């Protein structure tokens, strides 16, 4: 479904991704693990289209998207939840969903569906996004991505700064969403990620240094201590 092949991405002159390969197929949750600054967010941003790789290819649903603007990729079916959530703080929760709503495609999530999927948000419907707490915003960010009717969801560190009880809930939500589309999850929190994903990649210094199933990752002590410091 998504195929990233040997991408090289820079911020100005600094060479960040030095040939990243990864794949996500239908029906799976794939996690991208790596320590701080390893290049997880950069990978996600390259896929979404914020930071075009100078070399390499990204294909999504058979279409080359590595040079395409973010908004086009999102309309094509990439749902993006950024690491800092970025709720439209002056818009109400409902308006956040409305502006993200993609009506040019088959509609799988109506706005009401979103509120029923995240019942917690219902009472904040007309509250401004900026007035919500971090956890509440994270819900909004995920729901907002759903409003774009994604065919694949990119989640960048969804549990950063969230309370354990919320993280738990989040894990459940992500597992539920898996029934609808595959998910690429960038995480530092390997405990959390490995618990819910089927497969995983480990990235370090802009290179994928390991990939394998959940089991393989769980069992590979070397990787765990060297790259994940678990």
């Amino acid at each position, binding site marked *: 479904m998504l195929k990233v092949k040997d991408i090289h991405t820079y911020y100005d002159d600094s060479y960040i991704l030095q040939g990243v390969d990864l794949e996500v197929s239908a029906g799976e949750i794939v996690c991208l693990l790596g320590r701080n600054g390893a290049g997880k967010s950069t990978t996600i941003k390259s896929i*979404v*289209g*914020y930071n075009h790789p100078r070399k390499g290819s990204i294909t999504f649903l058979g279409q080359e998207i590595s040079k395409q*603007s*973010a*908004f*086009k990729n*999102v*309309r094509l079916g990439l749902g*993006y939840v*950024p690491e800092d959530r*970025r709720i*439209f*703080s*002056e*818009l109400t929760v409902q*308006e*956040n969903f*409305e*502006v*993200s*709503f*993609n009506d040019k495609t088959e509609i799988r999530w109506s706005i009401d569906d979103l509120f029923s999927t995240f019942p917690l948000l219902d009472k904040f419907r007309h509250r401004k996004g900026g007035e919500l707490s971090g956890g509440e915003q994270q819900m909004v960010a995920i729901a*907002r*991505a759903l*409003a*774009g009717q994604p065919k694949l969801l990119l989640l960048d560190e969804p549990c950063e700064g969230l309370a354990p009880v919320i993280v738990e809930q989040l894990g459940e939500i992500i597992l539920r969403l898996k029934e609808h589309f595959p998910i690429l999850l960038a995480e530092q929190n390997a405990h959390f990620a490995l618990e819910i994903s089927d497969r995983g990649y480990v990235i370090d210094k802009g290179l994928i240094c390991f990939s394998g199933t959940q089991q393989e990752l769980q069992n590979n002590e070397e990787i765990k201590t060297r790259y994940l410091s678990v």
Partner: protein
Amino acid sequence: MEILLLNILNGLSWGMLLFLIAVGLTTVFGVLGVLNFAHGSLFMLGAYLCMQTMQLFDSFWLGLLIGPLCAVFVGLLIEKFLLKRVYGRDVSFQLLLTFAVLLILDDAVRVIWGSGYHVVEPPAILNGIISVAGQDYPVYRLFLVLIGPLIGGLLWAFFHYTKWGKIIRAASFDNIMAEGVGINVPLIYTSVFALGTWLAALGGALAAPQQSLIPSMGEKIIIESFIVVVVGGMGSFPGAFVGALMLGLLESFGTVFAGRMQMAIPYILLAVILLVKPTGLFRKGV
């Protein structure tokens, strides 16, 4: 008593013109984050283009319709080739770039239409006089008093009740994330600048029957619109409305009470408001 009424009308008609200019300025600032120094020049351009179309077709209404649209074309060029490159750069760079645009537009107009004064006649139906409080009052001014709230109301409805309007507001709060939810941000920016240009040029076309056209006619109005925008709260739509009315009325009544300090009225208003409410009267929010 009559003077009071007349001064209110005078203040309102000037205020409404200011509002049209300021609302464009504030929208462009709110979304693009650029405080456009050349906005006054687009106002001026609107007036000249209105005059030119009027001369061609001999109709004020056509001038009002076509003139601002031609200005929008110029605005699109400016956005595409210049402004695009300074989004997100420091305020000082944006001010300098738009200042350069101001210099270019003002002088170009002077080269094309000459430095002499031009006048535009109001259309026949608005050219009359009606009696207000025992004094003759031009109908055209009343027309201005009405058109401001009309356009303002339409814009407000657009921003708050249409999807496009909400999308524009979203892009104004966080353009990067707006892209991430599938919004074509460059297109939004271009459209918003076009809208801002259109509002400025429309203001110019509406002002044309009131004041003589010279290339520098945007200079006074740009500073006053800056003041309106800041007083109302940068990017705030109701703020622009309230600010413009306040300034219009103050200037009108200033002729009665301010004596020699009339010139300072806008600046005193600006200083007082910013001291009391540092972010302007209304919080950000288109």
